[in-house]
C-alpha cells in the first residue's frame, strides 16, 4: 500500500462545486469545477471521481460548504423548540427591536428560527452574578419534556437568563431532556456561547438547534460515503472562524458552519499574499452576483463576533469578517428616475444572465460592458460558452448610451466606473474605517470576475500591487487546504484592569486551555501539534465595544496589555485616552491543531518572453480610442515572464486585462503580480 499523499479540498457553493486536488509528491494542483447538485454530496463525489482521485490515496479531505447558510436563508429547517426561563420566551422574537431597512415600513425582519408556539417556559432564575434565585422546577421540566415528546420535536435549544454566569440550571434541564427524550439534540446556550447578553446568546443557540440535525446529518453522510470509498482520515469541515473541525465537533457546534462557504476565499487570499511576501492583503472575490471582501493585517485575517446570516439573528461566534456587496459580473446597470446611472445590487443572475449570454437577458450588466470594451473575449471557459457581442451592444445602447447621449464604449466605461467606485467604497469601509490605509495593502483578486476589475479598482484606491492567483475561479477551494483545526473558546471576565488579580486571569485562561486541549485531543490532534493562543478583550470603562488584544506567557501584571490596548485603540479609532480607566471584558483562547499544509510549488524564473495568441481592440479608458491589444494564454505563461500593458491574459476560468501603464510579472507561484 502506498502512503496516502493526495489532499482534496471541496468548496460547495450555490452554483458550482469546486474541487482542488493537491499531490504532495509531485507538488501539482489540479482542479475540477462542476454544477452543484440538489444533494450536494452527489456533486462532491462525482467531482472526485471525475478528477480521477482514488480515495485510498487521500491523506486529507477538507470541505467548505454553504449547506448551513442556505438552510438558514431558505428556512428549510427542521422544527425545533426552545425551553426558556419563565417570562422570557420572546427574547428571540423581540430581538433588539431594530429593523435593517429604516424607512421601508413594508419590509420586515424575518421571523425567528423557532416559532412562538414551540418556545416553552419553565420556572427557574439565576442572577447576574450566577446566584440561583429560583432552582429549576424539575416537575415542570419533565412536563415540558413530555410536551416536546408529544409534539415530536427532536432538536431543542435550552436558553436560560444569565446562564453564562451559572450554567447549572441549563445543564439540569439538558439532563432531564436527555433522560426523557433519548436521541433528541439539545443545544444549551451556555455551552454554545457562554457570553453575556440574552438575545445574542439565545439567537446563537437557536441557530445551532435548527442546524444541528441537518448539518450533522450531512457531514456524517458525507463522512460515511468517503469512508466506504476508502478514505481513512477525518473529514475536515471548514468553519466560519477560518479553521476546520471534525464531524464530532459539528455534532455540538453546527452553527459554526453558518459562514463556512465564504471563509475559504479569505483564507486563500491570506496564504497567496503571504507567499508572495505581503502580510497586508485585501481579498476581493467577485462572482456573478456578489463580491466578498476580506482583509488581512500583519498576516492575520480580521474576524468579527457581530454577524448574522439574516438580519436580527446574530451568530456571535468568531467569523472571518467578510463584507459582501451586491456587485458581480451579472449586476445590472440602470438609470434611475432622476437620470442617475446606478449599478446593482439587482443582478441578472445565472438565468437569464447578462445580455451577452443570449439566454433572453436584455438589460446591460458589468459582463456586457467588459465584453463591448474588448476586455472580455467572445468566449468563456475556453470556448465552452460563446458571448453575443451584438446583444451586449444593444443592451448598453438602448438602456444607457442613448438616454445619456454617449457612445456605446463610453457608456460601457461609465457602467464600469460606477461598479468599480461601489466596490472601492466597500473596500474603504472595511479598511479605512478600521484604521487601515489601503495603500499599504496588496489587492488579491479572484472569483470569475475579480481579475477583470482588479487593476482599475487598485488605481481607484491607490493600491500599488494586484495579485491574480493561478486559478482565480477555484481559489476558494484552495483555501480549504490551508487551514488548521481550530476551536474558539471564551469566558466573560469583567473587571477594571487596575483592580484585576493577574492570577485570576491566568487561572481562567488555564481553564479555557484545558478545554481546548480536551477538544483537540478528542479530535486526535497530537500534543506537539497543539497550539493555544490567548486574547483579552478590553475597553475603556463605560465603552460598549471591546477590542481584542493578544497576550502570551506569564501574566504578572496587566500594564503591558493595557498599553497595547491604548495603542490599538489609537490605531483603529484615531484616539486614545490615557487618563481613562480600562476594563477587561472577556478572555478568549484559540485552540489550534496544526494540520500539515501543502507546499505550493515554486517555479524557477525563465528568461523567455511570452508570445501572444492574437490581438483584439480593447477600450481601456474613457474617451480614448480602442487599442490593438495582444492577448496571452495564461497557461503559456511561466515564472519570470513580464507583460507590459496594454495586454489581455485569458484563462479557463477568468480574464485579466492589463491596461496601459500597468505591468504584470509572473511570480514563482505563478501569480500575476501587477504593478498598477
Amino acid at each position, binding site marked *: 500500500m502506498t502512503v496516502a499523499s493526495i489532499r482534496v479540498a471541496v468548496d460547495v457553493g450555490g452554483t458550482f462545486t469546486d474541487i482542488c486536488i493537491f499531490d504532495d509528491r509531485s507538488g501539482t494542483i489540479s482542479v475540477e469545477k462542476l454544477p452543484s447538485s440538489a444533494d450536494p454530496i452527489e456533486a462532491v463525489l462525482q467531482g472526485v471521481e471525475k478528477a480521477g482521485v482514488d480515495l485510498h490515496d487521500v491523506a486529507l479531505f477538507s470541505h467548505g460548504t454553504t449547506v448551513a447558510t442556505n438552510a438558514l436563508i431558505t428556512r428549510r429547517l427542521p422544527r425545533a423548540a426552545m425551553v426558556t426561563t419563565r417570562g422570557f420566551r420572546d427574547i428571540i422574537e*423581540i430581538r*433588539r427591536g431594530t429593523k435593517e431597512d429604516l424607512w421601508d415600513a413594508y419590509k420586515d425582519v424575518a421571523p425567528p428560527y423557532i416559532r412562538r408556539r414551540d418556545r416553552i417556559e419553565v420556572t427557574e432564575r439565576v442572577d*447576574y452574578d450566577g446566584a440561583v434565585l429560583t432552582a429549576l422546577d424539575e416537575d415542570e421540566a419533565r412536563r415540558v419534556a413530555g410536551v416536546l415528546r408529544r409534539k415530536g420535536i427532536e432538536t431543542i435549544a435550552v436558553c436560560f437568563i444569565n446562564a453564562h454566569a451559572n450554567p447549572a440550571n441549563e445543564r439540569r434541564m439538558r439532563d432531564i431532556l436527555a433522560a426523557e427524550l433519548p436521541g433528541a439534540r439539545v443545544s444549551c446556550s451556555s455551552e454554545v456561547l457562554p457570553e*453575556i447578553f440574552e438575545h445574542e446568546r439565545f439567537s446563537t443557540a437557536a441557530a445551532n438547534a435548527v442546524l444541528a440535525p441537518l448539518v450533522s446529518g450531512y457531514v456524517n453522510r458525507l463522512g460515511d460515503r468517503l469512508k466506504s470509498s476508502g478514505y481513512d482520515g477525518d473529514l475536515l469541515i471548514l468553519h466560519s472562524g477560518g479553521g476546520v473541525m471534525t464531524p464530532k465537533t459539528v455534532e455540538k457546534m453546527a452553527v459554526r458552519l453558518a459562514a463556512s462557504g465564504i471563509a475559504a476565499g479569505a483564507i486563500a487570499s491570506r496564504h497567496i499574499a503571504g507567499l508572495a511576501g505581503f502580510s497586508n492583503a485585501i481579498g476581493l472575490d467577485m462572482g456573478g452576483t456578489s463580491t466578498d471582501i476580506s482583509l488581512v493585517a500583519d498576516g492575520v485575517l480580521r474576524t468579527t463576533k457581530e454577524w448574522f446570516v439574516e438580519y436580527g439573528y446574530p451568530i456571535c461566534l468568531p467569523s472571518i469578517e467578510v463584507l459582501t456587496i451586491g456587485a458581480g459580473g451579472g449586476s445590472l446597470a440602470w438609470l434611475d428616475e432622476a437620470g442617475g446611472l446606478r449599478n446593482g445590487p439587482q443582478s441578472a443572475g445565472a438565468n437569464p444572465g447578462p445580455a451577452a449570454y443570449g439566454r433572453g437577458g436584455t438589460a446591460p450588466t458589468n459582463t456586457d460592458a467588459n465584453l463591448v470594451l474588448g476586455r472580455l473575449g467572445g468566449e468563456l471557459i475556453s470556448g465552452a460558452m460563446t458571448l453575443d457581442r451584438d446583444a451586449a451592444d444593444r443592451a448598453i445602447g438602448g438602456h444607457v448610451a442613448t438616454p445619456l447621449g454617449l457612445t456605446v464604449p463610453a457608456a460601457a466605461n461609465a457602467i464600469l466606473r460606477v461598479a468599480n467606485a461601489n466596490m472601492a467604497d466597500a473596500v474603504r469601509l472595511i479598511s479605512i474605517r478600521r484604521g487601515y490605509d489601503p495603500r499599504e495593502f496588496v489587492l488579491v483578486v479572484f472569483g470569475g470576475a475579480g481579475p477583470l476589475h482588479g487593476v482599475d479598482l487598485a488605481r481607484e484606491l491607490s493600491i500599488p500591487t494586484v495579485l491574480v492567483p493561478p486559478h482565480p475561479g477555484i481559489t476558494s477551494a484552495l483555501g480549504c487546504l490551508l487551514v488548521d483545526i481550530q476551536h474558539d473558546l471564551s469566558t466573560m471576565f469583567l473587571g477594571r484592569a487596575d483592580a484585576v488579580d493577574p492570577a485570576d486571569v491566568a487561572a481562567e485562561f488555564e481553564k479555557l486551555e484545558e478545554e481546548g486541549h480536551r477538544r483537540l485531543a478528542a479530535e486526535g490532534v497530537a500534543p506537539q501539534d497543539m497550539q493555544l493562543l490567548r486574547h483579552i478583550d478590553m475597553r475603556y470603562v463605560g465603552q460598549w465595544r471591546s477590542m481584542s488584544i493578544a497576550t502570551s506567557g506569564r501574566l504578572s501584571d496587566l500594564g503591558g496589555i493595557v498599553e497595547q490596548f491604548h495603542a490599538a485603540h489609537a490605531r483603529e479609532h484615531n484616539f486614545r485616552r490615557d487618563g481613562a480607566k480600562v476594563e477587561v471584558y472577556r478572555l478568549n483562547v484559540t485552540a489550534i491543531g496544526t494540520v500539515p499544509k501543502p507546499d505550493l510549488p515554486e517555479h524557477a524564473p525563465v528568461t523567455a518572453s511570452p508570445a501572444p495568441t492574437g490581438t483584439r481592440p480593447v477600450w481601456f479608458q474613457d474617451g480614448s480610442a480602442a487599442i490593438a491589444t495582444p492577448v496571452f494564454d495564461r497557461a503559456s505563461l511561466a515564472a519570470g515572464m513580464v507583460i507590459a500593458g496594454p495586454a489581455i491574459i485569458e484563462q479557463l476560468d477568468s480574464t485579466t486585462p492589463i491596461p496601459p501603464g500597468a505591468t504584470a510579472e509572473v511570480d514563482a507561484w505563478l501569480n500575476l503580480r501587477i504593478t498598477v
Partner: protein
Amino acid sequence: MDTQSPASGGPGRAYSLDPVTLEVLKNSFSTIVDQMAEQILRTCHSFVMYARDFSSALCDHEGNTVMQGSADIAVHVGTLHFTAKAVIEAFGDDIGPGDVFAVNDPYLGGTHFCDVRIVRPIFAGSEIIGYSQSNGHWADIGGSVPGSFDVNAKEHFGEGLRLPPIRIVHRGRYCGDVVRMIVSNTRAPEAAEGDLHAQLEATRIAEIELLRLVAKYGRETVVTAMQEVQDYVERLTRQRVAEMPDGTWETIDFLDYDPANGEGLVPVKVRMTIAGDRIRYDLSGSAEAVATFLNGTFGSSFSGLVTGTKMFFPDLPLNSGFYRVLDVELGPPGTVVNAQWPTAVTGFCSGSYGKVVNAVFELWSHVQPQRAMACCVDIEYLLVGGRDRRTPDGDVFMWYDWMVGGWGGRNGKDGSSATSAVFGVGEAVQPLEGQERLCPVVTTEHQIATDSGGPGRFRGGCGVRKGGVLTAMRGTVMSYCCDRARSITWGIQGGLPSIPHGVWLTRAGGEPRYMGAIFSNVPVGEGDRFTRPSAGGGGLGDPLERDPAAVLEDVIDEYVSVGRARRDYGVIVREIDRELDLFEVDMEATRSERRRIRAERIGWLSEDPEGVAGRFRSGELDVLDLVRQFGVILDWGTGQLLPQTTAQYREMLQRRAVPAWLATEGGAA
C-alpha cells in the same frame, strides 16, 4: 419658517456634472457618513448612543444637509441643517480651520438638550466647503433628574444645560476649560467627555475623507456635487410627488392631557396639501403647549413631518433636497408643536413628535393606499434611579429603559411586532442581562403582550411587556416619560385601537396600582414590583373581515387570546389539545357572532359612558372592551370616567372606524 431656499436649483435644472461622477461622489458622501457612524458605535460611552441614538451628516458650506447616515435615528432627520446653520449664524466670519463647535439648543432647531451636536467646518485651502456633524444623545446633560428627563419640568432650566453654538476646539487647540465646564454640569463627566471624543473623531474622519475627494476630483467638482446631490434628491422627490393626485387631507391626533387643563385630549392637527410637485403641511389649530415636557420645538416638528413623509418614499436619500419639497406652516408660536423658549421640550419624543408622524402616516395612507399604515407605537422611557446597595459606596445607578412595540396594520399585511418606535428604528433595546449587572433591578418578564395588537382585517403588530422587581437599593425614585394611556394607538379604515400605556406598581406586600403614563420622582424601594406594556400597532380594516384562519394562527401562537378572538374578531375558536397546538374555528358560530357584533357595535359607541364605566368597575367589562367596543376612557387606576376625553375618543372612532364598518356591512349583507 424657511425650509425652501430653492436658490440652488429647481427640478428643471440640468446637472453640470456627468452622471457617472455624480453617482460616484454621491456614493462617496454616503460612505463618509456611514464611516462616521461606525466610528461612533465603536467608541461611544453613552449606552443611549450605543443603542443608535445618534446621527451623522455632511452639510454644505451654507449648512444644508448633503447626506445623512443610512441608519440614522429618524428623530434627528430634518434637524441637522438647522444646527449647522445656527453655528454659521452665530460665528459668521469667525470660523477658522481647526475649529469645532458644539450645540444642543432645541430652540435653534435642535431636538432636546441630551442631543449634543458637534459641528466641524471643513476647509479646502482657505475656503469652507462644508461641515461635518455628529449628533449624539448623551446619557445625561444635567438638570434636576438623572438622565435629564424631568417629566415635571415646565421650563428648560430644570431640563439640562443649554448650549448655544460654542467653540470647543479653537484653531486646532482643544478647549479643555470649556469642555470641562460642559461635562461638569452632567452626572457622568467622564462618559460625557468620552462621547465628545468619539464625536470629534467622527467629524474628523469626514473631513479627511472629503479632502481626499477634493484631492482626487478637485474642489470645484466636489463642491458642485454637494449641491447637485441635493438637486438630484429634490428632482426625484418632485417627480414622485407630481405623480400623486392633488388635494388636501387633514386629520387630528391627540396627546393624553394637559395637567394645566384637567382631563381632555390635546389636539395636534395636521393638514396636508399636494399641489403639483409640492407638499404643504399646516399644523395650525394644534393646542397650546402643555404643562409637561411633551412639547416640541420647530426642529422636532419639522423632523416629524419629514419622517412621516419619508416613510412613503423609502428609497429616496435624505438631504436638504428632500426638505425643499416640503412647505411647512407650523402655526402660531407657543403651541405644543411650536414651543418657544423656555418651555420644557425634552419629552417631545413621546409627545408631539409621534403625533405628527402618525398623523402624516394616516394622510399618506389616503394618497398611497398601497403603502397604508395605521398608528404605530410611540417611544416611552422608564427611569429608576438611586443608590445601588450592592456596591460598597452605594454608587448611583440609573435603570433607564425603553421598549419596542407594534407598528400599524398595513395594506395586505399585519403590522410589524416588537419593533423599535418610528422615532428611532435603529434604536436597539438593551439586554436585560447587561442591565442587571449595572442596576439592582431584576427583570421578571420581557415578552410579547397577548392581545396588544390593534384588531383589524390586518392586525396591528404586537407590543411587549417588561417589568421587574427592585432589589438592593436606597434613595430611589421612578419616573415615566410616555403618553397614549388615553389617546390610544389607533386603527384606520375600520381597524381598532391597541391597548393603553401605563405603569403598574406593586409595593412590597401590596396590590398593583396604576401609575399612569407620565409621572416623575415617585419614591420606590426594595421589594417593589412593576410592569408596563408597550402599545401594539392600530389595526387596518374591519376586524370582522379578518380571515378566521389568520385569527386561528394568532391564537395558537398566543398573539391573540381565545376570548379576544371572539370579542374583537367574532371568531369562535375551540381548543382541542393546546399542548399539540390543536384548535379549530367553529365557522357556524363565527358567522353568527360576527352578525351579532355587526348589528350592535355602532350602538355601543353611544351607550351611556357612566353605565359602561360602572360595568367596568363591577368587573363585567375589561379595559379592552372599553377602548375597542364602547369607546370609553377612564382613569385606569380609579375607574373614574373621563367624560371630555371619552367624547373626543368616540369622535375619533366615528371618524376612523365607523365609515369603513358601514361600507363592509353593505358588502357583507
